[in-house]
């Protein structure tokens, strides 16, 4: 039934932003710029000509049905997809105007942190989880590590709950606490961008609310990009929202505009629940 529409989407060159290399020069407030970005899993093309400017110290949300490429795009921004075999990326992606693909990969990942769908604390203590990123980046001085751990746990709104049990295993925490621990762990290395891949999909509404509140708090110190299946979450949280469909960025605009007055029919169908 949706086939004609899909055909149209596939054949149309959809890039709401000019995609010439010259326009990739950094705009004053943008942190990450993608131009003409294609991504392939083997012979399957998962991303088609993505072009986007992600603003500094804002929350950008990506929405779209499962398999639309939003997580793939997220994982391209810290080059996480390179860990998978048989993948290929084409096009231009810049962090502060610098070519992301020619930078050192561990450097990229330190500057662009990531929080995953399922909380994945290491089987170590709470303290060691948060300190891990510092230690692998060569920071071992106790006073610095102690400070960073406390600061990160405070940013992640977890300090009050764990300050007396830092040497307890992370696995003893609840699901929501574990996810906040993962956020603290990512924040400890002071990333310039924090990518979150459906961070609340396994959490109850109260734990979700806590995470949304803390994301609001930390956008002063980092640029946030979040993939979510929950449209209310995008509406509540994000300054800008991008709608992905079948590997294309259909529309990217102010969150208000996307949800109240989208320019494209596909976006409207999706946000009003008529599609996907």
């Amino acid at each position, binding site marked *: 039934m949706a086939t004609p529409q899909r055909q149209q989407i596939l054949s149309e060159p959809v890039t709401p932003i000019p995609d010439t290399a010259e326009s990739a020069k950094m705009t004053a407030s943008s942190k990450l710029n993608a131009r003409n970005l294609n991504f392939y899993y083997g012979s399957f093309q998962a991303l088609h000509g993505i072009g986007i400017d992600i603003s500094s110290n804002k929350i950008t949300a990506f929405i779209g049905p499962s398999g639309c490429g939003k997580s793939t795009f997220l994982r391209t921004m810290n080059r996480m997809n390179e860990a998978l075999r048989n993948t290929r990326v084409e096009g231009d992606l810049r962090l502060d105007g610098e070519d992301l693909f020619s930078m050192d990969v561990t450097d990229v990942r330190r500057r662009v942190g990531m929080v995953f769908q399922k909380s994945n604390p*290491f089987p*170590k203590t709470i303290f060691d989880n948060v300190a891990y990123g510092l230690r*692998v980046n060569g920071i071992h001085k106790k006073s610095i590590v102690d400070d960073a751990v406390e600061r990160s746990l405070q940013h992640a709104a977890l300090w009050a709950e764990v300050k007396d049990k830092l040497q307890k*295993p992370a696995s003893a925490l609840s699901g929501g606490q574990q996810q906040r621990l993962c956020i603290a762990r990512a924040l400890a290395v002071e990333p310039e961008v924090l990518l979150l891949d459906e961070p609340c999909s396994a959490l109850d509404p109260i734990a979700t609310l806590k995470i949304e509140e803390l994301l609001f708090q930390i956008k002063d110190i980092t640029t946030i990009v979040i993939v979510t299946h929950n449209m209310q979450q995008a509406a509540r949280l994000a300054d800008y929202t991008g709608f992905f469909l079948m590997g294309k960025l259909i529309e990217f605009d102010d969150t208000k505009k996307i949800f109240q007055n989208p320019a494209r029919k596909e976006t409207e169908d999706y946000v009003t629940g008529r599609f996907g």
Partner: protein
Amino acid sequence: MMMEISPKRRVVNAVMLSLSGICTALVIGVLFFILGYLLWHGASSLNLAFFTKLPKPSGETGGGMANAIVGSGKVLLIAALIGVPIGFLAGVYLAEYSGRMFAFCLRYTVDLLNGVPSIVIGIVAYALVVRPMKHFSALAGGVALGIMMIPIAVRTTEEFLRAIPNSMREAALALGATKAKTIFSVVIPAAISGLLSGLMLNLARVAGETAPLLFTALGNMFWSHGWLRPIATLPVMIYNYAIAPEEDLHQQAWAAGFVLLALVLVINVTARMIIARGPAGSRR
């Protein structure tokens, strides 16, 4: 629609159930028969002298196998020093680095090595160590058992590392850890209890090997000093005493068999306990 269960199906079901039940009982029965038989013959000839005294010259009664107990320990130590690092690092490569095609070939090779008869491994160690050095030694026995440990070490390492979810690796990589750092600071610590128990089961398995030691470690009626002389081991001692004509030596062989089995059981149970405890959360 209700299906009537025919009498024939009932009978087939009953026969299959009893057959599998009987076979299960046989399996358990064999184990307990061996245990009981060894306990009956072995424990009765076990005494303090067995653990503290050297074997007596033929014709005299009494004596013990202190040298063989220590000897088995020394040979196993050499075997572990050779087999574990090689097998472990190859297993890390197999689980974390190698491509699908190469991994398939490597796994196949390792399984073939695992299937090589232990006597053949003994001949290889004889040719590699005994011939050039011109005498039997603890080292040669350790090399033979070490080679035997490699395949199991590779496969257990691979399996326990693969069991660690990929999300662990991604979490570490996303924090700017290199791949090697990720493996050694997150993946291996997360798998450590499995890896340790795999090591212990591997040791338990080669502890009872006799054939590869016959013409590498050879055997010794006295204390063997250092690592380069013939050395007594429990399995070879059992072999030699069991085929000797004296009844007293048969009793000593039973006792040695009992000690060896007890040792293997203790290692096994310890390994299971390590697995059951799981990864310690407080470990760095």
